[in-house]
């Protein structure tokens, strides 16, 4: 039984923030849920997919975030409640339609959940999506607790239905991927029947009138927010300083105040409804004190917008000048994620306070020891990962080609081509699909005498998400490059969600397999399919494709993700080192197997000064047996 579907109203359970949001959607009667996976948002739709059949709702992994929003919007237009979830980069993809949807309006409640990733734990950028709410005129909610992640989802759906506009719920990694207490509510029994009323269409004309209507909706939202229970003040009646915070900022501020013993001096104004801002509520609290500090992730969103409110209200309410502390003043860092310690630093500076977390001698010694004995754990490919083999072949082919060729990567595990584990092959960074788009651009520079070889890589899920248009462009405009599709049959980085190429749907039903090879052929590209574990054949193929200077050469390197494989199969080989063959540091290879190939399954034994297989880590893929110049790595079939 999934916790998201637990029929136990009143019971308190431990839930991930994303599960709490999913639970809220179920309690509010959501019937359609859509997403393209993206860390840290994936578990929202993932956990709904697990219970979809029991709950008799429809859940899909969409091909990308824009389509996900469109599918959810259709449900709303037919009167059903719907949820779509995405990470910050996903909202960038979806926003073209989102801004239109604001103008056309909706019918059934629809919540767009966006999970930002401050500090970019698993992202290609550090973006604060709250700006989209202001840009597109959407009501915005920011949960602090796990309970709020559930309750605000329900409220967002109700508000959306009442105002007939999309409501944005914005989480961050530290809520989405954290766990805490959630008290369960009732799960509805009844389902709505979808019906599209053709007499009230969802169009965006007349444009200016629709835009004006959107602002009326926003004003109504502001009125609701003036008395919302999601906004509150805690602390002394007249504090020396008032923190204004949202989301995780509340937790960190509370703890900072407690640790510093400032309960009688510092108050905290919690904002859960952060666009449009409730200005009367704010005005009342801004009157409390002269010093205001903003604590929020990532951009100074509240900081700028509350100052705007203060500028409007100051003359009317006769609240005098205020000193504002935050990101602009340097009291709170303008990048990265917040911590209690970062808030403590800000409060120390603003209030001229001192604070020591523990005996400074201990702290100094502990930090010294850590510095001396702890090494970084560099990111690397998993043991048995097909990407390591693919990059080994690409590396060697680029060397053989000898034209200063380079690689343009995409978004996925294989983006580690920027690191030593991917042999520093990638020379650009981008968004979903950008590897192929950029390669397409480089491949057109031939006309100006550009002769460097270009190879793009993308994954199978990425291919469907955003690479297909880039390939169409390359084919149509006759660009010259090698396009490598690293097909590992998985959306591996986000947790193995199915995609159009794998033959199952989000709800576990059989689905048509969209054949990547056939799609590329249908576009007219030259296509070959190889096994990356055959290093020799793959290297020769890429070298040959570099020789062909006309058009797009698609090479599909097909091998199942090692983690996906580990779930169902035993290791094909048992690997060991033939110590008589490994000549260690006397070999001219300069520790090729450990230092360059970098599979965590092979370690350098500093005592014997020879390679050694770590049997706990090795998954027996056998690729390393082909890289040793002295054939010292031996595989035996299991």
């Amino acid at each position, binding site marked *: 039984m999934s916790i998201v579907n637990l029929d136990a109203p009143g019971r308190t*359970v431990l839930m991930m923030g994303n599960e709490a949001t999913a639970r809220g959607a179920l309690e509010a009667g959501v019937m359609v849920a859509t997403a393209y996976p993206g860390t840290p948002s994936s578990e929202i739709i993932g956990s709904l997919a697990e219970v979809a059949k029991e709950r008799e709702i429809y859940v899909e992994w969409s091909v990308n975030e824009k389509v996900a929003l469109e599918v959810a919007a259709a449900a709303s237009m037919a009167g059903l409640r719907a949820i779509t979830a995405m990470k910050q980069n996903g909202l960038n993809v979806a926003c073209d339609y989102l801004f239109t949807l604001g103008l056309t309006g909706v019918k059934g409640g629809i919540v767009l959940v966006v999970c930002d990733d401050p500090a970019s734990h698993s992202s290609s950028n550090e973006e604060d999506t709250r700006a989209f709410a202001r840009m597109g005129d959407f009501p915005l909610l920011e949960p602090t607790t796990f309970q709020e992640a559930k309750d605000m989802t329900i409220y967002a759906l109700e508000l959306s239905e009442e105002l007939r506009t999309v409501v944005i719920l914005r989480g961050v990694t530290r809520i989405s991927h*954290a766990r805490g207490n959630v008290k369960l509510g009732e799960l509805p029994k009844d389902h709505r029947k979808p019906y599209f009323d053709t007499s009230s269409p969802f169009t965006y004309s007349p444009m200016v009138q629709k835009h004006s209507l959107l602002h009326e909706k926003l004003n109504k939202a502001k009125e609701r927010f003036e008395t919302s229970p999601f906004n509150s003040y805690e602390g002394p009646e007249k504090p020396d300083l008032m923190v204004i915070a949202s989301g995780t900022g509340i937790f960190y501020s509370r703890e900072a105040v407690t640790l510093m013993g400032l309960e009688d001096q510092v108050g905290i104004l919690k904002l859960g409804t952060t666009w449009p801002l409730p200005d009367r509520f704010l005005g009342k609290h801004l009157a409390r004190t002269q010093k205001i500090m903003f604590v929020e992730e990532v951009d100074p969103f509240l900081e700028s917008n509350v100052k705007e409110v203060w500028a409007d209200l100051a003359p009317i309410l006769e609240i005098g000048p205020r000193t504002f502390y935050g990101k602009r003043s340097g009291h709170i860092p303008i990048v990265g994620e917040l911590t209690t310690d970062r808030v403590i630093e800000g409060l120390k500076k603003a209030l001229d306070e001192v604070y020591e977390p523990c005996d400074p001698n201990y702290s100094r010694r502990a*930090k010294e*020891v850590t510095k001396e004995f*702890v090494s970084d*754990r560099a990111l*690397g490919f998993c043991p048995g990962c097909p990407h390591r083999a693919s990059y080994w072949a690409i590396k060697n082919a680029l060397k053989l080609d000898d034209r200063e060729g380079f690689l343009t990567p995409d978004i996925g595990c294989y983006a580690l081509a920027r690191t030593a584990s991917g042999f520093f092959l990638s020379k650009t960074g981008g968004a979903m699909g950008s590897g192929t788009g950029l390669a397409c651009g480089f491949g057109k520079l031939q006309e100006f005498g550009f002769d460097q070889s270009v190879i793009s890589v993308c994954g199978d899920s990425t291919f469907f998400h955003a690479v297909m248009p880039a390939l169409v462009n390359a084919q149509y405009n006759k660009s010259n490059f090698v396009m490598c599709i690293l097909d590992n049959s998985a959306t591996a980085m986000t947790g193995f969600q199915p995609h159009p190429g794998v033959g199952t749907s989000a709800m576990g039903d059989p689905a048509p397999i969209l054949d990547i090879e056939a799609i590329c052929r249908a576009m007219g590209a030259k296509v070959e399919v190889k096994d990356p574990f055959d290093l020799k054949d793959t290297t020769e193929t890429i070298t040959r494709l570099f020789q062909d200077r006309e058009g797009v050469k698609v090479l599909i390197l097909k091998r199942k993700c090692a*983690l996906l494989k580990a779930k169902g199969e035993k290791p094909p080989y048992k690997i060991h080192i033939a110590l008589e063959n490994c000549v260690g540091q006397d070999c001219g290879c300069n520790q090729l197997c450990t230092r360059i190939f970098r599979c965590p399954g092979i370690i*350098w034994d500093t005592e014997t000064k020879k390679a050694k297989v770590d049997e*706990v880590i090795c998954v027996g893929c056998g690729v390393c047996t082909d890289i040793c110049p002295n054939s010292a790595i031996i595989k035996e079939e299991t």
Partner: protein
Amino acid sequence: MVTLKKDPLNLIITGVGGQGNVLASQLIGNALVAKGYFVTIGETYGASQRGGPVMSHVRISEKTQCAPLIPEGKSDVILGLEPMETIRIIGPYGNPNILVVTNSRPIYPLDVTVGNTKYPDWKVIRAVIAELSQKAYFVDATEMAMNLGTPILANIIMVGALVALKVLPLNREDILGVLQETFSTQKLEINIKALELGIETINNKNN
């Protein structure tokens, strides 16, 4: 609900991706929520599926939902699934009163396997952990798990060790309860064995 000696009580479970860190934190968290505590778990695992440092901050309170991250110097207990990761956590989060229980088996960082740096000697690891903690326990959990048939059980052995130390308001039965809810019948028996083994190891050390 037993009154906590300190509120919030802060535990950090640390290890390397693939060691079952997140599962360990969930088992402990589920057991504590069932007993009526507020539990907040903040997990840091970054982009890597396996091989990167993973830490779970587990915060237990009778009164309130805490921040998902423990402030510097404020961890009360460290449950280490890997010895170098245990030291990594002591740096920012340790204090003179900290209790440490750690697995002894190293997982070498890539920089060590490639020969760029050395993994510290076991004696040195023991000495610095002992120096920087009020009390430290070392458990050969991976070896014990391999004797049970698979190294992945080391996390459950370590959960057993933690329970035996009685620093959390949890006993053997509480964890047995969540194990029963978590594992299928065929996996349950071996996980219970692992739990018992962890408990026994600490009880033997303390006797």
